[in-house]
């Protein structure tokens, strides 16, 4: 009898989320949701993994306080509640510089404050603008965001923006889709590649272990050479 009631309470706790499998919310913008889902679910077994394709949905997921998050560098500026514990890497480094590309070679770094910048939707509009202005040490007239890397080139071609901010390895991928000649106007300060963040107070060990055990081939499909 007691055991039956004990089981009922366990079910209630699980259903209400008072006991829950650890949650991993994933949102980074450089590659497709399908590829990310495959890589994460293989590495993080036993963890409740949700991969988001849109920032607004990811932001909503943070209200449930997931123990782990994998996200772009801008995430570190959005909340003080998480610590970065590991990152993807390219070559030997987990740091890169964003590049500012334009179809118009007339743009000079000293003038970019007059321009409109295109970027991937890694945060709210104002958060992205603030992040980019900090990393490029310049203000911008305005920011336009898109959800997929392949939508950045059309933004420039249609003159919706004057230049785009993009990670070099993402630009290399886009070269297989677009051959329009572009000019590098500026380089940003260093940013981190997408990283694993752990909520303060949560047990990081298991998550770090799973992240670092990610197969190289899975990291490669996401555009990285490994994790560190």
């Amino acid at each position: 009898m007691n055991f039956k009631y004990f089981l009922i309470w366990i079910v209630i706790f699980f259903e209400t989320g008072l006991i829950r499998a650890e949650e991993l919310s994933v949102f980074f913008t450089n590659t497709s949701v399908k590829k990310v889902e495959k890589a994460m679910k293989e590495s993080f077994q036993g963890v409740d993994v949700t991969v988001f394709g849109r920032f607004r949905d990811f932001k909503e997921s943070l209200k449930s306080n997931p123990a782990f998050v994998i996200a772009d560098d801008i995430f570190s500026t959005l909340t003080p509640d998480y610590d970065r514990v590991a990152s993807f890497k390219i070559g030997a480094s987990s740091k890169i510089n964003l590049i500012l590309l334009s179809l118009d070679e007339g743009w000079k770094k000293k003038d970019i404050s007059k321009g409109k910048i295109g970027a991937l939707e890694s945060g709210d509009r104002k958060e992205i603008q603030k992040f980019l202005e900090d990393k490029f040490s310049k203000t911008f007239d305005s920011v336009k965001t898109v959800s997929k890397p392949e939508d950045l080139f059309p933004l420039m071609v249609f003159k919706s923006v004057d230049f785009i901010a993009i990670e070099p390895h993402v630009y290399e991928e886009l070269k297989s889709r677009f051959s329009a000649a572009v000019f590098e106007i500026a380089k940003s300060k260093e940013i981190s590649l997408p990283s694993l963040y752990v909520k303060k107070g949560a047990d990081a060990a298991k998550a770090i272990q799973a992240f670092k055990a990610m197969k190289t081939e899975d990291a490669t499909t996401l555009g990285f050479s490994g994790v560190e």
Partner: protein
Amino acid sequence: MKKNIVMIIFIMCLCSNAFAKDLIAIITKKGKDFEDLTKQITTSDLIDKFEFKEIQVTNATTYEEFQKAVKEANPKLMILMDNKSVSLAKEFYEKEKSKIQSVAIMGLNYKTMLANEKNICGIAYEVPSYTLLTQFKFASEGKKLSNVLSFYRGSVFSEFIKESKERLALEKITLNAVDVEKEGAGDVAGFLSSKGMEMAKDANKYDAVYVILDSGLLTPELFGNFWLKSSQESKVPYLVGAESLTSPKMNFAVFGMGPNLQDLASQTVQMVQSILEDGKKCEKIKVEDLIGVNQYWNKKKASSLELKKNPKAEVNELE
């Protein structure tokens, strides 16, 4: 005593809507796409600062009905869905001399329709030729795409063709656009069924046929007698900015695209934010090109044309 006065003033403010959010009116029609897009917009970041009111219109809605509904709503901005909403709004601006800014979406030919409008800007609903052709090139592994044929009416699409040629030249794609009104000397149907047919089947000269969504050239007669016939007799792939024309049953286009509604909602929200939060004016914004699209791959047609899909291409495969 002071506390009571402050309390009274606070309650009066609450009652007088001093803290009420500004209103965005969405002029919309019945239909799944309209409803989906409205939902995306009304649950976006705009919800933090604005309220929404939907005003439904039909093709039978009169100007007086529209005017009454807008005046009652007293919006800060209008989102106009479909050409009917835009027509009603244009009349509203002419008669009321209103300065409310409006964003037009989900309608056709906005670049022409809104060219002289000071208070209406928007997003074109047509898939840009640049997007269609560059993404077809990526999706069809190893396919050369240097010379693309297209037929158009010079009286309507000259500016569009000029812009398309400039954009495609960036990708080293030459758009060979044939003005059927000029070449046909008044007999468009005759030209297409003779010379047009010959050109469309010339796989040595052309790598693809780009089908412009022009109701004047895609009449039922021309579609049956020229477009469908030529696409089925030709080894040249047909590309079109519409999902329905990519259906395997129709056996027409091998690759198509259509607007992605989530991306369109995001593009709309950003335009609204630039007006209401950044103070930009529609007169400067004008009409933007559509950015986010869905891609469709007609498997059966691709197989008959010996086209191989790039495994990296994220397309909807239609069987």
